[in-house]
């Protein structure tokens, strides 16, 4: 049984086309300017193997060096990008990010879904805290 995990969802409109927004995630030069970037950080490394099963590794220095790694699961330009995402320094678990892009009003609407956004928490509680709520709801329905 898979336990539902806490999910974070963000909607955003861009004036740029769906293609440009999509490519910004996978082109190392563009991605290095914003993806996993912080205002005061510098990018040390942006490796992107943009194919299904390919991996990425983005290392940012902002005080410490923080490595962001993952594997591409879906690359459907310019509609959908799915990749696993982890920061080994903070957690051994990986999360999953889905980016959906739809053309809208001359630009595009982007929906970012970050699944399992609380990996440590879920690990700690084993069943996961959404599992708790689920189990409770099921029992109450009995």
């Amino acid at each position, binding site marked *: 049984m898979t336990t539902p995990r*806490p999910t974070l969802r*963000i909607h955003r409109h861009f004036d*740029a086309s769906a293609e440009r927004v999509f490519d*910004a995630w996978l082109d190392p030069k*563009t991605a290095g300017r*914003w993806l*996993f*970037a912080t205002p005061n950080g510098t990018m040390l490394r942006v490796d992107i193997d943009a194919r299904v099963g390919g991996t990425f590794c983005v290392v940012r220095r902002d005080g410490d060096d923080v490595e962001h790694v993952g594997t591409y699961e879906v690359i459907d330009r310019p509609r959908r990008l799915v990749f696993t995402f982890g920061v080994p320094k903070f957690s051994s678990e990986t999360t999953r990010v889905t980016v959906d892009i739809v053309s809208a009003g*001359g630009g595009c609407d982007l929906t970012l879904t970050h699944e399992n956004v609380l990996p440590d928490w879920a690990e*700690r509680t084993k069943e996961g805290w959404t599992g708790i709520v689920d189990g409770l709801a099921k029992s109450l329905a009995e």
Partner: protein
Amino acid sequence: MSLNSVSKHIRILERARLVRRRRVGREHLLSIDPKPLDEAARWIETQRASWNAQLDALDALLKADDVAGRRKPKKRRRGHDR
């Protein structure tokens, strides 16, 4: 709902540190500790802020590239090709 399943769920809540148990004689006194939920909410907010900042940066750089004229936005004619 059976007593059994109530105590099962309470054990899960205890493991998640959301419920604390204190024994007084034969009685078990349970209290709720919402702090872990606050921590979880804070973590999610941190993640949200981080993604929002990144998407802000992406939006800004795409606009800056437009201004720089490297990729001037073209008025696209739509209609007949969709």
